[in-house]
């Protein structure tokens, strides 16, 4: 699992590459949780190359979403695969995130 973070004024883009399973989520949790500071702006979670996500990954997404909710920013989830869209659907995440 690889995570790339690109920052522009008021915009942070996070690229998830690979499988975001439990061990991967534990690995990147610190980096992702650190993005709480940017939660006032826009955070784009680029899932173009994300092949898999489990609840541990979903928790990180929800964490950022809650932070954005508190700080008045917004989280955009970008380019999710059908499989991940199914997971989002099953967990009600489609309603929580702006999907592009």
């Amino acid at each position, binding site marked *: 699992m690889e995570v790339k973070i690109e920052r522009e004024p008021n915009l942070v883009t996070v690229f998830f590459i690979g*499988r975001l*399973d*439990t*061990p991967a989520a*534990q690995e990147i949790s610190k980096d992702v949780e650190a993005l709480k500071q940017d939660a006032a702006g826009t955070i784009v979670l680029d899932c173009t190359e994300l092949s*898999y996500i*489990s*609840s*541990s990954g*979903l*928790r990180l997404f*929800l*964490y950022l*979403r*809650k932070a954005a*909710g508190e700080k008045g920013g917004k989280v955009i989830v970008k380019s999710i695969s*059908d*499989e991940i869209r*199914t*997971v989002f659907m*099953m*967990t*009600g995440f489609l*309603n*929580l995130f702006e999907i592009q």
Partner: protein
Amino acid sequence: MSKNPISNPFGKRSTWAGMLLVFVAAVTLEATSLVQYYYSRKGLEEEASNRAVSQIEATHNKIMDIIDQAEAAVRNSVWIAQWSLAHPDSLHRVCERIVGDNPVIVGSTVALVPGYDKEHPFFAPYCCREADTLTTLSLATQEYDYPSQEWFVKPIECGQGYWSEPYIDTGGGEILMTTYSVPITDPKGQTAAVLTGDISLEWLTGIMGNIKIYPHATGLMISREGKWMMNHNMKLATDEIIIDVVEQIREQDDFKKLERAMLSGESGNILISYKNMKRYVYYAPVERTGWSMCIIIPHEDIFGRVRKINLVVTLMQLLGLAMLILILRSIVRGQNKYRALNERKRMMENELHIASNIQMSMVPKVFPPYPDRNDLDMAADIVPAKEIGGDMYDYFMRDNKLFFCIGDVSGKGIPAALVMAVTRSIFRTVASHEDSPAAIVTAMNNSLSDMNENSMFVTFFCGILDMATGHIRYCNAGHNPPMILTDSIKAMPVKPNLPLGIAMGMTFEEQETDMQYDDALFLYTDGLSEAENIDHEQFGMERIEAALHGHKKSELHLKNMQKEVEKFVGKAPQSDDLTMLFIHYLGEGRQPAANHRLTLANEVGEISKLSEFVENIGEEYNLDSSLLAGINLAMEEAVTNVILYAYPEDTVGHVEICADKQGNALTFVVADKGKPFDPTLAPPVDITLGVEERRIGGLGIHLVRTIMDSVKYSRDNDMNILTLTKNI
């Protein structure tokens, strides 16, 4: 202890070898001295011969000198005598002249052949010297009858000069005499008279008696008639032996041979034995007189010296041999002492061997140990570095549970072996009524600490394997972590704890894990991991791990490990006791009859194995990717839940996953021995809630329930069993 008499065949053999050595040395020495003696004798014999011969020659010369003088004196007067024949009355002058002019001659006569002179039919004037005075007598007396005397008859007979047999002159001073007589012929060639010169032989006996070439050497002279010439009373003042010789030996054959040889004018030597006395006699003839002389030398005189030397040499040799015997004896005694020590050592080794047998009989050695059971395959071996050692293992079955242990007593040899024996009995005693490894180890520690005056300690590992479930509870006391052989090979996570016997009242923590069908435990002592080769490299964990690959049966494992260690150690001596114990579990355990099975440790990192496992199942059943993705997710959620929350932190635990397909139903069983937890009781997640209301947790179980068609939980035999079914 009974004392064995020390007598073994080896000892006797070496004594015999010693005796033989002495014998050979003695023979060699004796042979040497015999050779030496022989040559010395030969030399001495030659020397004696040379001395005797040259003495005879010198004496002969002396005699010949006198004989010559006497013969010359008589011959020189022959012509006067011839001339005086016509005047017999003047013949006495001839005699007087001979005696007067020649000191050698002591008497002289001119005796007419009877009837030659008509006037004097018998006429023999005789002149002799007595005390420097010349006296003239007539020998023509009735009693004397000179014409019959040898000195008169013989020269006429043979017509030439003749030396008479020696005789004792009774008329004069009773001295030994001999007479040289020559016939006188008148101008007509008729034998007219005999002219004589007498010489005393006293000087001769003097000469002969003075032949002192050896202390007891004596010279003797024999006349042609076989008369021994000595002084008048037939005695030689010098040596009584000669009297023996002449008076007693005479009858001896040897002596007769000598007489014969001498009388026939030969020269040579002869050995005469008489009365245990041997004498060498050297003899040679005296020219003209028909005499023969000899020198008699006692054997002792010639060889006495060499005999003495030989005696001294022999005595010294005997002394040397005696010393050799003493040295050999002390060597043999030393050997006996050494042998006695050896014997004692052998007895100790024997006792050690018995002790070793006793010790070995304390550990179970018959494999397979439970031939009726098909759920257990075991193998073990113990190889002490010395005859006996401080390693131990033990096991026994109680209540369908295998109690097993391995231990290593500090130190080696007898002290370690005694402690090992004690440890083993305590284990048996305690484990017969305790059901918890920690309790067993704690009780053993207290027992061993209580009587530990020699500060010996024992590293110990004790486990109890439930044959029905494969569950193992174990407790370690400072021993090497055993290896557990599942899909992978790992050291068992153990709490180190202190070894037994160090501190009384210590508490030992218990740990637990599970074994599946075909899993195995490998227990060993540091004699394996620390086995050294000649370069002092240790066998080490890596080699142990490598050797554990590729086998299933315990016996093969054991043999392979032994082979590997032997190969590694090579010729280096075994430095420590080496003990190995394989326990290969073949029980059903938690084993569902499943086609697919996976055991994961309670580590998050194990999750990747799970997705591989699920992928394989998907491939096998040709599941489409979106279905498989869902199953994958649900399984990850179910298993992650166990890994993260079932076991207390820092506790080793496992989660087993089985998959099976019955008809359209693909069933997964997730089992663990963690704390009881029923996920089906978790409250459902309301996915319609807004961001603020949504809880972070609970999503995993929600996903499992959403994806799977059926989720069932049961608690069975201390296990959480979650059964997940997906219709495909």
